[in-house]
């Protein structure tokens, strides 16, 4: 038994990647979805997976795609870009899916997008938000360099050098456009969620119309998301003429923010803007309360400040804090509240904007599959580019603007924790309550 067993198992081992995926002819339409199902971001990955499944159930109950059901093959990226790459490769090659969805963390999504572009394969992103993912120029060498030269040019004071930089960046831009021409035929990346740079859109008008601060302190966690959001916020604040007194980044696992918060207290800015995840958000607000830091307003960007966990962990300290968000169940989009309720009932846990993104992504994918003339990647890509539908996340239509291509223009809202509930307070046309401002923090923290 023994020698043969050893050889057999070794053979099995090396033949392993050829394993069947359990599919045979006359099968449902296969869709691949890559999410962080294990690892540090598994929490959100799980919410998105459940949302995909909820939508899938509904779609298949209504007949699926032209009578055939859709089946999803989930792949775990473990929050690692190289695993994400393996995953999407496996889905495209091994499993023969028609289309790939998902993409939570920006770095993993970027790696996946690279593979998709190489294979001219349709990829529908619903959460990864780094701007450059839907900027075809970023996939070209010259484009990246042109951007750098342009930036250097705007910062250059010497006229002669400035002129030289402009010439260089123009040359590179022309080269990039040529290179882009080779990229575009293979560019089938579509993104439903707005890019990180647009998250703060709602906040901007709120600042200029209502709060009107003169100074600000900016704090952000240092991952790709936090960094790109912060860069964007910095630009918006500068545009509004708001002076940034302190800008610092921190590592997600930091325990003690008191030193930097004390520094902020000493500088006394009008607003404190933080881009954080759930736990650092709770810690920041708690420690601000402990230090009696009372600016005119606290504003959060990023998922952290809108999660129920934030309110639970920060308690009193979360009250009246504003936050930028991409979705909330009280928005008047058809099915938004129903989605929230159904999710809660079925899975006995809350959902939030990531879930909504995933849920609508499934609908967008199904819609495209229905309209596509065939299941070839070209036809699916064409169908995707013609998408124009309403989802629980809002209207989805993929357009090109600025440097972006195939990007959906989402809305950004501002919410506020009022009496332990999250209310949409801005823009006025979506608001469910009026904003509470100014805030008497001492009274709130009683």
């Amino acid at each position, binding site marked *: 038994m*023994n*020698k043969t*067993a*050893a050889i057999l198992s070794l053979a099995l*081992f*090396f033949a*392993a*990647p*050829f*394993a*069947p*995926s*359990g599919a045979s002819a006359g099968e449902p339409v296969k869709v691949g979805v890559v999410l962080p*199902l*294990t*690892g540090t971001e598994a929490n959100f990955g799980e919410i998105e997976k459940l949302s995909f499944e909820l939508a899938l159930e509904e779609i298949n109950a209504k007949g699926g795609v032209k009578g055939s059901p859709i089946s999803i093959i989930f792949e*775990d990226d*473990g929050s*690692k*870009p*190289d*695993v994400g*790459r*393996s995953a999407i*490769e*496996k889905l*495209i*090659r*091994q499993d023969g899916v028609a289309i790939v969805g998902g993409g939570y963390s*920006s*770095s993993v999504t*970027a*790696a996946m997008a*690279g593979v998709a*572009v*190489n*294979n001219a394969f349709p990829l529908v992103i619903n959460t990864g938000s*780094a701007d*450059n993912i839907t900027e075809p120029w*970023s*996939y*070209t*060498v*010259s484009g*990246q*360099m042109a951007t*750098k030269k342009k930036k250097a040019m705007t910062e250059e004071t010497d006229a002669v050098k400035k002129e030289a930089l402009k010439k260089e960046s123009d040359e*590179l831009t022309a080269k990039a456009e040529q290179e882009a021409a080779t*990229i575009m035929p293979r560019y089938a990346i579509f993104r439903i969620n707005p890019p990180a740079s647009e998250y703060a859109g709602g906040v901007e008008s709120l600042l200029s119309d209502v709060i009107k601060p003169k100074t600000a302190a900016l704090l952000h966690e*240092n*991952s*790709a998301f*936090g*960094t*790109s959001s912060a860069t964007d916020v910095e630009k918006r604040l500068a545009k509004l003429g708001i002076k940034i007194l302190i800008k610092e980044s921190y590592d997600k696992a930091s325990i003690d923010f008191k030193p930097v918060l004390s520094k902020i207290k000493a500088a006394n800015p009008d607003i404190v803007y933080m881009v954080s995840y759930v736990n650092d958000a709770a810690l920041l607000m708690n420690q601000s309360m402990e230090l009696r830091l009372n600016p005119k307003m606290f504003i959060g960007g990023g998922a952290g400040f809108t999660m129920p966990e934030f309110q639970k962990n920060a308690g009193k300290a979360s009250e009246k804090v504003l936050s930028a968000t991409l979705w909330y169940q009280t928005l008047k989009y058809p099915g938004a509240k129903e989605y929230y309720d159904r999710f809660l009932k079925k899975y006995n846990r809350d959902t939030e904007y990531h879930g909504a993104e995933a849920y609508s992504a499934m609908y967008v994918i199904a819609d495209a599959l229905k309209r596509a003339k065939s299941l070839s990647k070209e036809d699916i890509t064409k169908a995707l580019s013609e998408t124009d539908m309403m989802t629980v996340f809002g209207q989805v239509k993929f357009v090109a603007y600025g440097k972006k291509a195939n990007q959906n223009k989402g809305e950004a809202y501002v919410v506020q924790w009022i009496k332990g509930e999250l209310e949409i307070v801005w823009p006025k046309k979506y608001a469910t309550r009026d904003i509470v401002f100014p805030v008497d923090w001492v009274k709130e923290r009683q």
Partner: protein
Amino acid sequence: MTTMGKGTIAQISALAALAVIPLAVHNDYYLHLMILALMWVVIGSAWNLLAGYTGQVSFGDAAFFGTGAYTAGLLVIHWGWSAWWGLLFGGIMAVAIAFPFGWICFRLRGAYFALATLALNEVLRHVATIWESFTQGMVGVMIMQTYISKLPYYYIALALAASSIIIIRLVLRSRLGYYFLSIREDQDAAESLGVNTHFYKMVSLAVAAWLTGVAGALYMNYMGFIDPHVVFSLHDISIMAILVGIVGGVGTTYGPAVGAFIMVLMQEMFRTAGFGYIKAAAKFTDVPFLISASEQLTKGHALGFGILVVLVIRYMPNGVVGDWGKLMTALRLRKAGTTK
């Protein structure tokens, strides 16, 4: 060592087999795994040269890997050069980093040395994260791959893996090899016999750093995306290098190569719950236990992998190659007590 005939034939046929695989197998997913495995052959062998043969157990090889990767990537986005130049300059930059690295770490021994390498690894990671203007920080570096097909990458990786093993063998056969071993066995005795231990440790480190840096550059070219968290990762690169060396067999020439393939395939097998075999078997035989088993395996793949690591270290501390006899006896492929 082994006799000329048997050993060389085995080596050449292995190389030939590896060279032919992509032509026979048109499966990109499989090739992807093989490319990763070949990359780890380079990194593991490099680590082994420093640790297995020179006795300096580094916990910070990601420092060189990341340097190589970033060299390749930054050449592209700052100066518009092709990232392939990184294969040359990545190695050079990694050696440049090796000098202060060695200067700081080699004055320490044992546990202190290991900790120092770990600390330097972390320092580089933080520098890459903070120095946004140069490295783009956590946003990372993204470039487009030169080739759409995997074949070129496969052959380049294979060439690198083969060359690294050849280079290491040459080094070990030379005088350098003797000096390294003497340092490993008893550094003070070697020093007292007139061996300039610091110099030779640096040589060993330089070679290891160079190879690892080149591997990093290959990674940049192949993956198209890197960020500090990935390429300077303590767990995924530095410790993985050690595991590759240990599982394969420290202080053996081919140990790391074997270890590289085992680790890469094992990890993927756990991640996909047997490459989908279990799920397929479940569908085929309609046994619900198998379906839930495959789901649990996927959910706990990292756990399964960790347990495997603990077991290997506990029962096969000399690795697959080092403890080959023990392994064969355990699998009952050889009678207990026979020598190699």
